[in-house]
């Protein structure tokens, strides 16, 4: 049953012009990585990895926000809801079908990007021998957690869509949480540092803590450093982040289904 909705949404994504253009841009950027990298003279390999990971991350972010925020909104806007929500599906399957289709699309795009990036990085590193080895496993881990981060973002976009009638809350709400989520760890650490913590007013500190636990800690998904520099990958960090992803995404999706099931489509 649910696979129908999932396949339907995959078709939508694959036939979407915007998506095709975005993937095209991403591939073009990745192909140009060696050209950008030689500009750095010495750290060609390091720069090629940094650039590849950034390009991939940037395009995945765009995909997550655009697809996540537009999928439900578009169905309402074009009045597809009256046809599809009156089929014998629950509202929950409708939302989850969208979520999984977009998630799978992110995973597949990331896989293709990584493949192209791998070629670009190998080529770049051949241009100027680096003293460091390329640690592919670390690079793949960095991309994988980036994908998870954006899958979580898709869930957030769908939560916003499930309560909103317009395009604004899903788009700007998701972008705001992306920015806040990336910075939250640093802000929190700064505020709770002993020297600052004493000076900060107590209520403000509690508020900051509350917000810190509420908004997604997207900084935790950043494993780029160990992909570029000889820094060890913390297996504990990997496992905790994975668990965090599962719990946080489940809660968000649960809330989305809860609100969407109570919604009316007059």
């Amino acid at each position, binding site marked *: 049953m649910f696979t129908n909705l999932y396949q339907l949404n995959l078709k939508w994504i694959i036939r979407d012009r915007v998506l095709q253009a975005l993937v095209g841009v991403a591939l073009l950027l990745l192909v140009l990585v060696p050209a950008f990298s030689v500009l750095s003279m010495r750290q060609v390999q390091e720069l090629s990895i940094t650039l590849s990971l950034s390009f991939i991350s940037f395009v995945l972010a765009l995909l997550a926000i655009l697809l996540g925020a537009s999928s439900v909104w578009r169905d309402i806007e074009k009045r597809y809801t009256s046809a599809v929500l*009156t089929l014998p599906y629950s509202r929950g399957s409708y939302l989850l079908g969208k979520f999984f289709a977009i998630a799978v699309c992110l995973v597949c795009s990331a896989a293709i990007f990584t493949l192209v990036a791998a070629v670009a990085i190998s080529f770049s590193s051949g241009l100027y021998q680096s003293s460091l080895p390329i640690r592919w496993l670390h690079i793949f881990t960095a991309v994988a957690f980036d994908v998870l981060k954006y899958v979580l973002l898709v869930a957030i976009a769908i939560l916003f869509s499930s309560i909103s009638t317009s395009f604004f809350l899903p788009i700007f709400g998701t972008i705001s949480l992306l920015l806040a989520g990336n910075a939250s760890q640093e802000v929190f650490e700064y505020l709770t540092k002993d020297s600052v913590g004493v000076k900060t007013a107590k209520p403000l500190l509690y508020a900051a803590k509350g917000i810190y636990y509420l908004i997604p800690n997207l900084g935790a998904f950043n494993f780029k450093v160990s992909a570029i520099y000889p820094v060890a990958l913390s297996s504990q960090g990997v496992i905790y982040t994975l668990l965090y992803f599962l719990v946080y995404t489940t809660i968000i999706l649960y809330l989305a289904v809860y609100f969407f099931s109570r919604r009316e489509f007059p």
Partner: protein
Amino acid sequence: MKALEITGLSKIYKTKKAGVVNALSDLNLVISSGEVFGFLGPNGAGKSTTIKAIMGLIKPSKGDALIAGVPASDPHSRLNIGYLPENPSFYDFLTGREYLYFIGTSFHMADNLLKSRTNEVLDKMELSLAADRPIRGYSKGMVQRLGLAQALLHDPEIYILDEPMSGLDPLGRALVKNLIKELKAHGKTIFFSTHITADVEAVCDRVGIIVNGELRAVDKVESILEKGITGYNIHVRTGGDISLFSGFDFTERDSGILEFYTSRALFKQFMEIVVHANCEVDLVEPVRKNIESFFLELVEKR
């Protein structure tokens, strides 16, 4: 068997712009299996509101609806329904055939059956030529016919059609009327809304008339037509003596035929004279108010 049971259904919309709108008040209606029911009302009467509540798109403020005994809030209640939304709109990145495939699998149809039924309904709705083109390029009437095709696809027992004739040309309207008659012949239940009285007269067993969110009348179409008879036109061939008919209006036709009009009350008396005078009757034709005037009277009555 009750196909549809609506009890105390009410809907109040609360909006910022229009304030509180009493779209539907205390609707009670039972549609039995095999019946063609016309839900007739002017624009804004509450027809779509009722249908959306039945289909689970909106939550009633009060009351509930059962579909073949299953509450409308349960998605399973929709397994046996073919639904045509008002001014439908379907995923336009799919072709007509792909859309029907999606619908068929949503209703658990087996692949073989689905393929043959798809061709059948496309053919019936005269969409075979457009079947493999994206819905994006369909005209309004084509989308409406695709809407009917997707409602028919899984051969449900109950059809809920919101203004099925709207957006169609005269050929399309005739197509829909024939379709409804055909479904009725197969024992299906059809509940459809319309604001056109002639549609009701053409195909319905029963009609419910809704105005301003209130059900004003529910009756058999036949009995409304029967009650609406005001008099008769009678063509009589007389032997020449017309004095017996004094008091009745007539116009004389050539070839010795007199055309009388009698009110309903005087009909019996008139026929007795006919028998007495030993005349030949060529034609008896009831003169009646149609559903339209019945409808207009109800709408105007406050």
